[in-house]
């Protein structure tokens, strides 16, 4: 029997019942990957050898300690190509990192490996996680499993696509302005962005350090919670990871929303949100209301300036974070007679247009004479946005909204950067404030998935799972299979 679109929980039970083995799960994932990959292009690198070793080790662990083994033990998974794995080529979908094999493994990834995860490969994404469609990958965009002519979203598009296509039950992505939630929405899967500081960023190739956060994309809210519980927690190698203990998300999953106060931000349903998407999300709100949640309209007036704030802070950090790709020590080098020319040619050849655009924007925003008008001002607005969320959370327990203004659009449709930036208009405020957020499937428009976003106060990651799971238990949108998940053997 095929393992496509079986959840982690189901597969873990079958492994323990002796109905399958990690090696069989891996073989199933690889076979399905082979079937769909020519259309999907979700992977940049296959890690077959690593996966085989991990499957073998997982089989031993399950044989010896079936009860104490992690639910993730022996389950195939994939990693966005911005996450370092020792000895495995890691490119961040950029030519500038061609051939780079890090001598270390990201902390979040290592925690999954220690739990027995089986890594089938590194997934496609927008270059350095900058983009909302995957079209900024230097190696060609991944497709959407519901319609391969359409984008999977971004930047964690490959991770969302491979989960949506049923190749692996979960994958890790990263979310700087919506890069987990938006592709999850477009590919009909669940995508969770933890509170900033909850998951170590060590070994994550940085885009914008104060906004980046690693999180899971999976087939269900429970599965996201399982993965989150393994990767979360303080890491001495990341000083921005929080030392406070992580609340176990499991109890929250069954708590329901009876009596919970859910805020509906007026601005997140405004102009730019597709009428069909709004309709699906409003239906979802009624489902939550029927579960006993009390809905309340709230206002986040700074939303209209969040996008500009984000597009100053993120490029500013990016311009500095990407300075190390200079051709001196690793990755691409364009040999030139002078040092300056080597720098210029290497970076001109190594970076794509969107990366160059953001490096330029960020350099400008930090320049002497412009810093006060741009970067400092943006930091002040960022503080205001966080304060506005905090104030709203005094009267509501969580916020609910659409994840993406539209369903998946066709490749090449959005050819100007500003319309692309609008994709993240309801996701990026959460990054500016460091909030946890999730996207769960909540309907379809013309056979294309729509996502419901849930946000909660900082460090209340469990609250996000609570609301999302209450919704998921009352609906079956998340169980609908994409055409590629059904691709026959």
């Amino acid at each position, binding site marked *: 029997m095929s393992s496509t679109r079986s959840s982690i929980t189901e597969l873990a039970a079958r492994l323990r019942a002796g109905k399958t083995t990690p090696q069989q799960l891996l073989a199933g994932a690889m076979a399905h990957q082979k079937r769909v990959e020519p259309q999907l292009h979700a992977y940049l690198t296959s890690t077959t050898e690593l996966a085989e070793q991990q499957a073998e080790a997982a089989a031993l662990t399950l044989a010896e300690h079936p009860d104490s083994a992690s639910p993730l033990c022996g389950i195939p998974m994939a990693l966005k190509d*911005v*996450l*370092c794995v020792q000895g495995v080529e*890691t490119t*961040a979908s950029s030519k500038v*990192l061609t051939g*780079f094999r*890090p*001598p*270390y493994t*990201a902390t979040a990834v290592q925690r999954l490996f220690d739990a027995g995860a089986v890594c089938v490969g590194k997934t496609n994404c927008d270059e350095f996680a900058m983009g909302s469609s995957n079209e900024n990958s230097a190696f060609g965009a991944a497709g959407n499993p519901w319609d391969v002519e359409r984008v999977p979203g971004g930047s964690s598009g490959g991770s969302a696509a491979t989960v949506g296509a049923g190749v692996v039950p979960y994958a890790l992505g990263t979310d700087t302005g919506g890069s987990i939630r938006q592709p999850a929405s477009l590919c009909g899967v669940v995508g969770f962005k933890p509170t900033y500081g909850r998951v170590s*960023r*060590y*070994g*994550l*190739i*940085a885009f*914008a*350090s*104060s906004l980046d956060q690693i999180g899971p994309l999976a087939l269900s809210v429970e599965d996201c919670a399982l993965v989150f519980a393994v990767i979360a927690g303080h890491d*001495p*190698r*990341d*000083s*921005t990871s929080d030392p406070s203990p992580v609340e176990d998300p499991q109890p929250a999953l069954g708590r329901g929303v009876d009596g919970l106060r859910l805020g509906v931000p007026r601005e997140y349903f405004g102009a730019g949100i597709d009428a069909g998407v709004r309709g699906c999300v409003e239906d979802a709100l009624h489902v939550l209301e029927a579960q006993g949640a009390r809905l309340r309209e709230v206002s986040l007036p700074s939303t209209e300036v969040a996008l500009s704030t984000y597009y100053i802070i993120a490029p*500013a*950090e990016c*311009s*500095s974070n*990407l*300075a*190390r*790709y*200079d051709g*001196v*020590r*690793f990755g691409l080098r364009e040999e030139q007679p*002078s*040092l300056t020319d080597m*720098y210029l040619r290497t970076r001109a050849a190594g970076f794509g247009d969107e990366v160059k655009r953001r490096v330029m924007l960020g*350099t400008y925003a*930090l*320049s*002497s004479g412009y*810093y006060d008008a741009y*970067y400092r001002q943006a930091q002040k607005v960022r503080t205001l946005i966080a304060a506005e969320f905090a104030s709203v959370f005094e009267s509501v327990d969580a916020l609910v909204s659409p994840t993406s203004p539209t369903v998946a659009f066709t490749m090449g449709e959005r050819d100007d950067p500003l319309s692309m930036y609008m994709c993240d208009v309801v996701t990026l405020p959460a990054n500016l404030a460091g909030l946890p957020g999730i996207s769960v499937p909540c309907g379809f428009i013309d056979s294309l998935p729509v996502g419901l976003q849930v946000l909660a106060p900082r460090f209340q990651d469990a609250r996000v799972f609570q609301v999302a799971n209450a919704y998921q238990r009352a609906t079956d949108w998340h169980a609908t299979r994409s055409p590629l998940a059904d691709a026959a053997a």
Partner: protein
Amino acid sequence: MTQTAEAASSAVLARYEPVIGLEVHAQLLTRSKMFCGCSADYTAAAPNDNTCPVCLGLPGVLPVINRQAIEYAVRTALALECEIPSFTKFDRKNYFYPDLPKGYQISQYDLPLSLNGRLRFEVEGEPASCGITRVHLEEDTGTLHHAGDVLQSATSSLVDLNRCGVPLMEIVGEPDLRSAAAAHEYLVRLRQLLVYIGVNDGNLEKGSFRCDANISMRPRGASEYGVKVEIKNMNSFRAVRLALEYELERQVAVLDGGGALTQETRGWVEARRQTVSQRSKEYAHDYRYFPEPDLPPLRLDAEFVDRVRATLPELPAARAMRFADAFEGLVDAGVAAKTAANWLMGDVAALANEHKVPLHASGLGVEGLRRLLALVETGTINAPTAKELLGELYVSGGDAEALVRDRGLAQVSDEAQLAEAIDAAIAANPDAAADFRAGLEKALGRMVGHVMKATGNKAQPQLVNRMLRERLAR
């Protein structure tokens, strides 16, 4: 200076007043680097061996602040009478250069670890002082080796990142200095202080203690500053003094000739005894400083600062001066700076406290200590023997050489004499010998101890070590 130069310079100084401020970069004597676990002692390793993903600036890795470096910088700031704000943060200073692997240096910009201090010293016997603008922390860069004179004309350049990430403290002085001599005294005193409090080894030649100078001239009586020139590449106290004297005369000549000075950076060229223009203001970098997002701000509470204050040796000016003088005397007499500092701050300070008698008034005296240390340096006695003698000489005085001779304390560095003790140590410790042969390095210590005991602590430890290894390898 020649006499004519001196006369010319005093004539100049009657008309113009130099305004000088010094910036010192001092490497901290921490065990590890500023933001990673690599050794801060980078000199012994082969090129690029003393590195890790963090100091190499590889993608995805993150800095972690070295607590000891914070303590050392706070200790320095306290010794310089600085204020320590309760909130400080790190910033990124962005520029491209091959010795800077991340493309930015983690430094401190608008909220440094300390500010508003003062250094007291003497110029020609008169008390003087200079304001300290700030003391902040940053990371050192790597080093470049050019096949050619400078990077621009080099046919190739090699990058060594062993030094990259070594904790570096920047001490910015106020433009309070009014002569090359005052600048020289300030620098001598600052170096003494840093070495004395154990945060820096004070080596200008090797670059663990570096100085840049800002100098401008203004007519006597003027209150505004003139056009400022920054001077770099001064690798000794003498170079600092010569460069400032040269620059002072150069600037006066330009002004007297009716010319205008340009704000620029000039390098001291030792061989030509000149400063040479390196970079004018138009080409000044825009470093695009912004807060380092990978490091949360630091809150240095009063309790922490008090704890650091308690580690500071007693620093009243008079006492510090005496220590500094002793240190200077030892170093001038050829004792290695690190050895002098270790003895002064360790055993000598303990004896001074115990007997409430400072070194210069003790039976030993600075000269006595120098002679004792000379015996260690030449290998006549080993360090444990010297420590024993130190206590006795400190109280009762006496001639170290005579005591060593009379009591037969000279260390045994004759292999034939030691052979018996070596064999006996191995025979008496069969377990240790077996452990060592099985690869347990520390097992050697037990046998070394046996030999030392058997020889009344007179054996030369390095020799014992080597001989034991040779025997056991057979």
